[in-house]
């Protein structure tokens, strides 16, 4: 005996928002996020270049569409990259995936900024032009180039000493996540994130400036 199939298909709506706005890499990114979530750390290495490219091309696009002298915030780029790469994929909205994504984005953003700061410094030292070529990316931090490069070094140092501090600092600073968002991404409490961030900030500052009588733990 069978029952005739009178049951209508249930269509699940796209909950993640911005459906149709992602680019072709969207599916790939989601898969990589899934893979990272399942413990395949190698996937993180594959994810990074994708996010990195996306951030760069977004920044270029902005450069082309904004008035000269315009600055665009790195964190807003990260959000845009998110929308573009995974925004239309509901499964990507899972917080674990978001966490992995933001970690990759923060790392990519850091590399972009560092690369750019190095370039500029070279130009300056080369004594040639004052302005960076148009094709370069106009993203700005409140930090100067030298400070940024010092921060980069300090982060490397921190990564070796305290992974959690490093993660929080990356997500907060380069990922542009709020305390609550970091907490969600790291599956911990906002209070812990807040504490950790405050310490990390001091440690980084100390490392960069050599202040604080840097002679103990």
């Amino acid at each position, binding site marked *: 005996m069978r029952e005739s199939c009178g049951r209508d298909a249930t269509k699940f709506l796209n909950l993640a928002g911005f459906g149709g706005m992602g680019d072709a890499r969207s599916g790939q990114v989601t898969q990589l996020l899934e893979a990272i979530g399942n413990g395949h750390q190698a996937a993180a290495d594959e994810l990074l270049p994708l996010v990195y490219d996306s951030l760069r091309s977004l920044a270029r696009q902005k450069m*082309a569409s904004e008035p000269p002298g315009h600055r665009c915030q790195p964190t807003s780029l990260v959000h845009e990259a998110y929308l573009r790469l995974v925004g239309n994929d509901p499964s990507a909205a899972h917080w674990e995936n978001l966490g992995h994504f933001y970690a990759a984005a923060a790392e990519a953003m850091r590399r972009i900024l560092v690369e750019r700061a190095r370039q500029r410094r070279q130009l300056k030292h080369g004594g040639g032009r004052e302005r960076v070529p148009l094709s370069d990316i106009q993203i700005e931090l409140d930090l100067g180039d030298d400070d940024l490069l010092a921060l980069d070094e300090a982060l490397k140092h921190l990564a070796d000493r305290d992974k959690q501090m490093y993660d929080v600092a990356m997500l907060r600073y380069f990922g542009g996540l709020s305390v609550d968002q970091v907490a969600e991404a790291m599956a911990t409490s906002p209070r812990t994130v807040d*504490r950790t961030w405050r310490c990390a*900030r001091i440690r980084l500052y100390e490392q960069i400036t050599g202040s604080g009588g840097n002679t103990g733990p």
Partner: protein
Amino acid sequence: MTDESFSHANEILAEALEREPHERPAFLRDACAGDEKLRARIEALIALDDKAASFLETPDIQATIEPTTDAHAPARIGRYEVLGIIASGGMGTVYEAVQDHPHRLVAIKVLRRGAASSKAMKRFRYEAEILGRLRHANIAQVYDAGSFDDGQGAQPYFAMELVKGRSLIEYVQTKGLEIRPRLELFAKVCDAVQYAHHKGVIHRDLKPDNILVDDFGEPKILDFGIARATDSDLQITTLRTDIGQLIGTIPYMSPEQVTGDPQELDMRSDVYSLGVVLYELMCGRLPHDLKERSIPEAVRIIREVDPTPLSSINRVYRGDVETIVAKALAKEKSRRYQSAAELATDVRHYLNDEPIEARPASTFYQLRKFTRRNRALVGGVVVAFAALLLGTVAATWQAVEANRSEKQAVIQAEIAEAVNDFLNQDLLAAAVPSVELGKGIDVLMRDVLDAAAKRIDDTSGVGGRFQDKPLVEASIRQTLGVTYRRLGEFAAAKPHLERARLLRRRELGEEHLDTVGSTGDLAVVYGWLGRVGEAESLHREVLEIRTRVLGKEHPLTLGTMDQLANMYWATGRSEESDPLYLEVLEIRTRVLGEEHRSTLISMKDVARLHESHGRHREAELLYVKCYEIMKRVYGKDDPGTLVFMTDLATSYADLGRLDEAEPLFLENIETCKRIYGAEHPLTLWPMNNLAYIYAREGQYEKGEPLARRVLQTYREKFGESHGYTRMAQDTYGAVLLAAGRFEEAEALFRRVIRAVERISGESWNLPMIRSHHGMSLAELGHYQEAEQLLLRAYPPMQYTREAEEIIRYLVMIYEGWGKPEQAAEWRAKLPTEQDAVASDRPADDKPDE
């Protein structure tokens, strides 16, 4: 310095930072326990806190982008002489310029978007021309469009009316306008938007910054259609605009607009934006506070969260204004005002103290809103609820409509209220804890239904809340019953459908269509429960009434014919089922066309009919045909498509094409599992078939675990005596047979046959089970009983793939008995190489019984 000491120091540091400065010394003394070096170190670190904070301040996501002054303002743009810069922002720069002929001041908007392609330019000009045709006192006129080269490639620009004024919100606030003049101003804005819509132009970016009010109090809408005209690639509209601007714009964007699908955008998207503007005009706030949100969060909120009702911000707006705003802000386009004119009309109705068109959200709408609100929370469960809830309300509504009386309005209200209570208190209250426990969707549905069923049982007796609302109770019971049935929970469905039928018979009469509907649903459940006799008589009753009242071509009548035919077929009465199947297919093809779901189901039934008569080629063609149509029209995850897939795979296997059958089965099972869960009938059916096919092909290692799982699940869900359980037992027996476990197989087949014969007399799969039983007996050397069974099974099985096996066993028996003539006679029936597989046999090649 070890990492441990580093962590230790950090812990103390963190603790210290959380304390007030004056508490820190005491804390550090305790925490460092005499380690003065550590204490000094931490104090030094604490001293860095402020500097570190300002040094590494997290870049602010919300930072607005400051308009920069472009030092390189061109002296001329096209034929306009540039006087200065008015504004510079994400979309480009606006210049104040002067035109010679006619002599007037204009605003020139230059769009910075890199070098535009000639194609994009062409489109830009075309759009500009359309915009030029908008002439309305309250719309800033576009005079001209063109491009100029500033050394960075061609830059498109618009020359438009220069409007000097303040943004709408700023204007009403500085003027301190009362509600009434605000609404009058707003209605004017709506008129202008309506005018543009009438000309086919959607604004796409309505917000107070784009609505300026001049010194005479006249509103002017800026940038009409600019968003579209400047976009060569609509897909990335939102991405291309500056993020700062996007954040400024998002609160005014409609749900369909934030979804980013340009196809979804229409005039009603502007209506939504107008709704946001109205909301802001009324209470000075945005409907959603998105300031602290990331973009994905903002998008989700716009799509799912209802705004704070106006009246909860200011009681003044309780009633009409709130209702108007809510209607403009409806998430679904179809629920909004369908045009800006309708919105303006209602605003003016309100101003004139006339009744407004908009109605506060109905119960029906509330339900849908509830499901939308909670979709994120409970995902699929709530989507499934939606069907349940809507079913209840619709059914209730029909009952009321059919039962017209002077008290109709009262009944309607009662029903709405009762249904609402039921949903909120019973169904949804039950959902929440289950969701929190993180249970699977099936379990959730079950839990929720069980809780609801218990509640209704507890409260439907004398003195209960449904005591004087039997139709409401009937509707809810009907819905519960049908939902249980869809979940495959037939025993649970039965009492609710019985009660629904009883109540409707009493209240509406025997022949009322609702009563008949309940009867039909109950008949299906009886059939699934193996109570064939009762099912048949109920189906007949339904068919008789529906044919008489609705006519033979009515879908409901045809549905009953279908059910009845299935009944007959399932009980092995193909001479009764076949003509019904053919008739239903004929009528449906004629009335509904080939792509209709119901027609496709009939087509599949007829394919099976061909198959049972040995017309394998015709059967296969039909199976393929209806599967392909189903997949194309309804999608590959549709339950109908999945059922057809099972049938097609089975048909391939029956034709001996295992290479095609197996992957199709596996895909089928995977999809069904993913969508319906591992225990759903849709999933079990292909699992059973595949297990049987493995057994038939001798691959019992593959078949055994599958068959065991199917049998176990059927037993648990359907009970021992259900036809499906019997079928699964047969499949399991076939596996045992293939594995050479003949005693177990024999005993199992014997038990099954006895049980089936006792309950339903005959069944579509009894011949098959008999043949299997015969084979197991033959293997055990019980030739006499084996011969009887195989001979009895052969005629109805002669066109199936099993026929050959039956013949081989008979040959074996006769040879074993030393009856070479009979053995030869049967051996002659064995197919030759050529017609072994997929042979087309004549339709009239009937078995001699």
